[in-house]
């Protein structure tokens, strides 16, 4: 059974439909890429899943539970962490405080410390900057912090929204190699990206979103070799 199932999901912003009834599945251990142009509804999809925008109709199921109407703050405790677009770190807090807020719903302090060690192993830079105020970090470092903060909740699925946005190629490569590492450790990943080439290169399967509809889906490799995808999203 799929870990996350989205069935006929519709979301409206006022009278404007943002998602016109999309369906997709994320299986355990998969890395799913959701690609598409600006305004296609990628971010809205993630926001609907984690309860940041209300769902007009349809159903979202996570590990057998209906989470369609579950409020945002209870989602993380169920094992789903969302790394939002634009990173959204808490700018006036230190790196360490940000990370600890990622573990807000967890109780056992020694368990938290262990996860913190894991996060620091993935991102040695965060350990070096633990006492630095998050707002003074570079964009790439903030993205690492946002990811590390999400991992602090020990999620079974990680939702990532445009992790490459606004980053230098070196940081993009670093972030993607960490996503691969996290996935290799057994975490499920739902990745939303405009950088289709990068996303497809690490994903197992992918969905293509166009103005609120899913227009194509399949194994990432096939999409990477698909002519119309190459033309529309890979700039070839």
């Amino acid at each position, binding site marked *: 059974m799929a870990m996350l199932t989205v069935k006929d999901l519709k979301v409206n912003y006022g009278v404007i439909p943002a998602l016109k009834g999309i369906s997709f599945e994320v299986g355990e251990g998969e890395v799913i890429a959701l690609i598409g142009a600006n305004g296609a509804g990628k971010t809205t999809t993630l926001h609907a899943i984690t309860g*940041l925008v209300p769902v007009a109709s349809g159903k979202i199921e996570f590990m057998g539970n209906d989470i369609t109407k579950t*409020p945002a*703050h209870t*989602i993380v405790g169920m094992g789903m962490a969302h790394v939002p677009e634009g990173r*959204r*770190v*808490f*700018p006036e807090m230190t790196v360490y405080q940000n990370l600890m*807020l990622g573990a807000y719903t967890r109780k056992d302090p020694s368990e938290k410390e262990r996860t913190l060690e894991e996060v620091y192993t993935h991102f040695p830079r965060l350990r070096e900057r633990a006492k630095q105020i998050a707002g003074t970090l570079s964009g790439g470092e903030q993205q690492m912090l946002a990811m590390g903060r999400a991992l602090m909740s020990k999620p079974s699925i990680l939702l990532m929204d445009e992790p490459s946005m606004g980053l230098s190629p070196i940081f993009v490569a670093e972030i993607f190699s960490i996503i691969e590492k996290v996935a290799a450790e057994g975490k499920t990943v739902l990745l939303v990206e405009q950088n289709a080439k990068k996303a497809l290169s690490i994903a197992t399967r992918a969905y293509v979103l166009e103005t609120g509809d899913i227009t194509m889906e399949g194994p990432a490799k096939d999409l990477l070799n698909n002519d119309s995808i190459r033309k529309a999203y890979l700039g070839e």
Partner: protein
Amino acid sequence: MVSFFSNLINGLSLGSIYAIIAIGYTMVYGIAKMLNFAHGDIIMIGAYIAFSVITSLGLPTGLGILAAILGCMVLGICIEKIAYRPLRGAGSSLAVLITAIGVSYFLQNTALLIFGSNPKMFTPIIPFKYMTVKIGEFSFQTISAISIVVGIILVILLQTFINRTKWGQGMLACAQDRGAASLMGISVNGTISLTFAIGSAMAGIAGVLLCSAYPTLSPYTGAMPGIKAFVAAVFGGIGSIPGAMVGGLLLGVIEILSKSYISSQLSDAIVFAVLIVVLLVKPTGLMGKKIQEKV
């Protein structure tokens, strides 16, 4: 010199009360992103609760203070739930502002209906024989010293709560980014309720202190201190707790010193003139954060 020191103590005492009120204002602004203009009237309700328990029912003073704190706490939570929460996310901060003014009039008129318009004599929480402290030729009111001490204790407690507890960190997170806070598992509604509870409890304490220092209690008792505390919060930089503390203390001292040395009628004008000058020089207030315009 002796009178200068007494004035200074009176100023710091009034300033501490302003600071306690201003902190409530500033916390609510920082976390709920709204100006709760009914905050001053919560002070008045707190004082009436203490008055009813201590003077009308003749129960012990401690019980009256406790009732004022708890009563204000519940009142604050209810006001937020009933009046402000339904408007949250409606996109208009003006609607919330107007509602807050409405709540303020509602509280004043409710007090008017229950207690009448005649001012009540509030029984100060300090027994008469301990009313003043004399050190050599130098004397001051006990309540002044208590106000200052209570102000300091409350600020320390609050800072510890915010920096050392999970709920406090949740409040800071909500103040910085509500959406991201909810993704961390922090209930935004719960955090805002908590903020109103703490701010209103402090307003209750301020009400008891204020009416012990100036013992006439009417339905409009909270209005002027409420506005002054708002000024103090802006003065210090709205959203900043240390700023509210400094702003409150400065405001109290400026007010009392101008009353004693310049003119008691002009003191409020002087207070507001200082505010205008501060805002002209530093628009974000003394300890306010820079507001970054999003492009």
